[in-house]
């Protein structure tokens, strides 16, 4: 499979603290890959490092063969990375419509078609389209965050803990949406909810203490109870 995102021995830091000590992974075109690990392992920091929101000390980060290491976040995003942050990143002072519009690279026919696709995927957003985002529920905010990242012609979608703080019934519909999304978009998912990660991811990487420690097919991890207990505490 063609390689789309490549991280090799990535070391990154926040202030005086080194958070990632050597993360390596690859995501191919059209794949859905899950990053797993315990709390504080460095999963969220890895996504932020890819986006340029956390500074890289060493290592290689490439998208489609082009280096994104050390680039400004807005330039990385424009190279084709849609990012769904852990806290949704919704702008409360904007309406749902404005949250879409501010994220659009351009408001052409293709972009508006993608927005319509998102609104079909998440009908709640269509109903709340003119409302201020501060009035949305947690589930709706997550839908908006994912939908907003889909309006551009991105090459890959980075999704950080989409199930966090959501009710089980919402997580279930979110899983369905992510499965639908992965059919035409490459997805890199960070997730603590093992069931959701298994439902969406085809391959996995486990990060522990800022390092990649395991990788493989998701179906193998599902069977490997020992590995689950060792690194995921399941």
């Amino acid at each position, binding site marked *: 499979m063609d390689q789309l995102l490549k991280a090799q021995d990535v070391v990154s830091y926040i202030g005086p603290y080194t958070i990632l000590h050597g993360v390596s992974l690859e995501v191919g075109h059209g794949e859905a890959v899950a990053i797993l690990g315990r709390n504080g392992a460095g999963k969220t920091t890895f996504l932020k490092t890819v*986006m*340029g*929101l956390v500074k890289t000390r060493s290592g290689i980060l490439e998208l489609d063969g082009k280096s994104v290491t050390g680039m*400004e*976040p*807005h330039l990385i*995003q*424009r190279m084709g990375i849609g*990012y769904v*942050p852990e*806290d949704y*990143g919704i*702008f*409360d*002072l*904007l309406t749902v419509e*404005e949250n879409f*519009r*501010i*994220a659009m*690279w351009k408001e052409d026919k293709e972009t508006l078609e993608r927005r319509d696709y998102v609104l079909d995927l998440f009908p709640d957003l269509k109903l709340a389209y003119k409302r201020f985002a*501060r009035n949305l529920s947690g589930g709706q905010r997550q839908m908006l965050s994912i939908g*907003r990242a889909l309006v*551009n012609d991105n090459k890959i979608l980075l999704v950080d803990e989409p199930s966090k703080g959501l009710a089980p019934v919402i997580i279930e519909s979110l899983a369905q949406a992510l499965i639908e999304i992965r059919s035409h978009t490459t997805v890199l998912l960070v997730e603590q909810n093992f069931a959701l990660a298994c439902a969406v991811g085809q391959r996995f990487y486990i990060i522990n203490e800022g390092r990649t420690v395991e990788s493989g097919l998701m179906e193998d991890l599902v069977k490997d109870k020992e590995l689950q207990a060792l690194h995921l505490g399941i």
Partner: protein
Amino acid sequence: MGTFVTLIINGLAQGALIFLMASGLSIILGMMGVVNFSHGTLFLWGGYSYVWSYYAIRFSVVMRLFPDAVPLTRFGSILTIRGVQLPPDAALPFVVELGIFLAALAFAVVLVFALGYVFEKLFISRVYGNIPAQILITLGIQVVFTDLVRVIWGPNPFPIERPPFLNGVTAFGGARIVHYNVFLIIVGAVIAVVIHRVLTRSKVGMVIRAGLQNPDHVRAIGINIRGYFSLVFACGAALAGLGGALYMPLVGNVVSTAGMSNQILAFIVVVVGGLGSFMGSALGSVFLGLMGVAIAMLIPGLSVVANVLVMALVLIFKPDGLFGLAVKKHG
């Protein structure tokens, strides 16, 4: 009743001036997280550059049209300000007076916009996220550029006049309506509507509102927010410059301490109104303006104390300000 109307108009005019200063300060502080103590000096530069350009243009126009006009006493230092007395029964046409006034205002606003842009690029951009450094560097700018005003235009206050077409008073039902105050209210209202429309109807406004909440998320959706920071800072500076330009003719003299005193008022409005809130800046400015003239009439010695007292009460009972953003602030 007449006194009441006079007070309301005077208070609204004061509020309009404070609003010009506070609205930019509030957005700079809310969106960029920059504690900007150089706002007062931008106000001052607006005032001095307006006065200098107004008198320079008017002197040149009058001397060309009326060669027997009499030049008046010269004020200033490196740059001088000189009035001119028209011959008896002579007057400049209204359109010419208006043109001179608008040209001088435009000069002041453009100059201070450019100053703000340069300040952001040279100094502010180096201290994002570092509040102690911001306070030191903007205070440094305040001191240096205020002294520069004194070097360029001299340290002493000097009197100035309002444009003749704004220099009247109308008696109406016992009230004394100063034309310049009505003009200030109209300018304040127009600027408020323009800012509101930009914030609510344009992509720039969307980015500003989003940036008020979380600049990092704005960057992560592909927007170069640092570019917007320069623009916002320069626009905030231009508003302060316009405030300074309109303030000098109101008080009738030019004094180099005006920047700091008005900056303190603007900071009080930002605290009272709520950080980054347009509505807070607008209503807070009107409130402080009205309260200022009322206190000045009733208990003149307490006008500064009253402002600080209001700020203290708001900080105690509503620390986010009366119209603080109803969002969780990040980043």
